[in-house]
């Protein structure tokens, strides 16, 4: 293995583990019925939602090559599929991949 790549992987995993470990340590004194727990629950959901929205609207990587309207159309159509499939997670997910490839190729 190349030393630079191994160091980059180790640094990345350390930076990732740090947040997880600190969360596990500090959560020890928190009861699941407490207000602090409820607040952190809200923070977690809002943070994840923000991450998803940023990934769709301001993507990094290959998605940057897809137009804003195509990304948004695929997401909205997939959410529609999610509701009409009685909240099944697999159908809209597979649909989104096919839809993105088709829109990007033919439209």
């Amino acid at each position, binding site marked *: 293995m190349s030393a630079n790549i191994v160091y980059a992987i180790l640094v990345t995993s350390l930076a990732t583990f740090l947040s997880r470990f600190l969360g596990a340590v500090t959560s020890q004194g928190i009861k699941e019925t407490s207000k602090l727990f409820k607040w*952190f629950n809200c923070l977690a959901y809002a943070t994840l939602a923000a991450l998803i*929205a940023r990934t769709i609207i301001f993507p990094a990587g290959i998605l940057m090559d897809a137009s804003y309207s195509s990304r948004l159309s695929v997401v909205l159509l997939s959410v529609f599929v999610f509701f009409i499939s009685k909240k099944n997670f697999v159908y809209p997910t597979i649909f989104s991949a096919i839809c993105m490839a088709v829109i990007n190729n033919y439209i």
Partner: protein
Amino acid sequence: MVSKKYYFKGYRSILTHDSPAIALTCCFIAIGALFKNLGFNIQESIFSTVLTYALPGSLVMAESMLIGASLLNIFLAVWFVNARLYPMAVSLFPLMMHKSQPKWKYYFSCHFIAVSAWLIMKSNYKKIPKEHRIDYWIGIGSATVSVSVIGTFIGFSFSEFLNKDMMMGLAILNPVYFLCMMVGAAKTIQITLSVVLGLILGPIIYLLSPEWSILLAGIIGGTVAYLLGEYNVS
């Protein structure tokens, strides 16, 4: 030690009809292909998936390496991006804490904190006795890591056959899957508001501060949702 019954129950939780396994595999197929394009070998790619096990962090590492960033820059960039794992851990571990369980299980299994595993645990924890939730969680984590490794291997091995359109399809799959899971989880006023505010504030704050946008949107959106929910209850 780990209860086999609950460990395998957790492991099997990804085999349901609406399992995250397909989406997760596809996301890591894209990561595997990306690693190969970056010059990683198969061992390094799998090593990275197992040790990091967080898609945004892996993407940031890959992008940072492309521009030749220093190790300190990679550390800080990944830390900022993955800081979301902190509130996720704090909002999950109290549900699994039990005095009969050794602390090493909690410290070891915090590595499995990632969106898919977290959402699966959040939807299923009530069905599991509190004493055994940590074993169930370790099962979920092992299953999702296994699937991620398989995805990385497939992506690395077949990267030459993945054209740009296919890579785009794989890339959009991850946010769509997480969005559907979050919409499905929004059953209370507080969670619904948290999701809606996070979705709105994330891109708006990104325009002002790209580095801090996710954390700030999470803190502001989550706090407003919490306060409105408490006010509504009272």
